[in-house]
């Protein structure tokens, strides 16, 4: 028992220098701030692009062969589909979190290790939320692009091409933003791994 206690004590002492390095790796750094700014900017622009996405087109609807077609103006907008609304909401949440965490990280430059853990925890939630929003919008986009012949859901992107293109851009930008959040969780841990 005595021998193992001696082992424990001396390993703590000699590992002190290495542990301090690990502590520094955990603390906030320039990389962390840059990634948070990037995540904030990207999710904000994704939210803005999809919120401003609107296209109106006049569609001829043929009720029967004998009557002339009815010309109906139809608008494609984000509030018509729950999946796009969900995508917008998750990007908005991630954007506000990005701004708040950026401010907190700037104020608390590596002073508190508990803060790093809390931020990692919240970053992981943001990764999950953002990726699910991206998946939802992408699935609906593919459905609008290709339709689904088995259930008679006609494709709409041949008509509302500008809307679909802008939505694709928004999803792409949001995807890069979610990658930024993912890297925020992963890269500090990889650096710890290399030093350990």
């Amino acid at each position, binding site marked *: 028992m005595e021998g193992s206690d001696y082992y424990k004590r001396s*390993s703590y002492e000699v590992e002190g220098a290495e*542990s301090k390095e690990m502590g520094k790796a955990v603390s906030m750094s320039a990389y962390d701030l840059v990634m948070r700014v990037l995540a904030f900017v990207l999710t904000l622009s994704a939210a803005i692009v999809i919120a401003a996405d609107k296209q109106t087109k006049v569609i001829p609807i043929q009720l029967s062969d004998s009557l002339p077609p009815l010309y109906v103006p139809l608008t494609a907008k984000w509030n018509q589909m729950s999946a796009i609304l969900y995508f917008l909401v998750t990007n908005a949440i991630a954007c506000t979190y990005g701004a708040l965490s950026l401010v907190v990280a700037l104020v608390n430059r590596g002073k508190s290790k508990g803060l790093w853990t809390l931020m990692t925890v919240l970053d992981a939630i943001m*990764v999950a939320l953002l990726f699910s929003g991206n998946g939802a919008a992408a699935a609906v986009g593919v459905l609008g692009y290709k339709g689904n012949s088995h259930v008679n859901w006609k494709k709409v992107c041949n008509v509302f091409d500008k809307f679909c293109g802008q939505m694709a851009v928004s999803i792409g930008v949001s995807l890069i933003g979610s990658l930024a959040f993912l890297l925020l969780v992963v890269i500090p841990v990889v650096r710890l791994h290399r030093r350990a």
Partner: protein
Amino acid sequence: MASTDIEYKSSSTPPPPAGVDYFKVDVILRFLLLAASVVALGVIVSSDQTEVVFFQGTLVPQPAKFKHTPAFVYFVAAFSVSGLYALVSALASIAVIQKPEFKLKFLLNFIFWDTLVLGIIASATGAAGSVAYIGLKGNSNLGWIKVCNVYDKFCRHLAGSIAVALFGSIVTVLLIWLSAFTIHSRVPK
């Protein structure tokens, strides 16, 4: 004494673990993720249903299969990956319990792969959820009719599978939290 000195000089690992219990919870969570992935896969793969519907002018028996929709195909692929990952990492986690010197390295590896798998699973859940929601409610603006009033078994299976997938995503988030907390308790200020 001499043998202890040699032992301590050759090892470059952190102090003996304070989080042995963390690893038991880790193993349990990984097996939960494996179970959730397997159940979600099983339920969605067995969801085929054929009904006689008025399709393109005539009454024909029309099947509803998960293969018809790219979102559900992606869902199946994503959860196959997650099931495999959960199995491999659960076994690795069990192996690491017996060899405490590799613990911190394994933890750090796990959090990286856990986050990747979380991204894949969350996007699959979101994709399947959104398509299933359109199937449930339809979309009058686009002329997409709802199908769940006809294909009730198909929709029930989808709902169950997506609910289990949501649970699996939460388990993965908990795994990342666990790794973060364990690193927090190991790395001194």
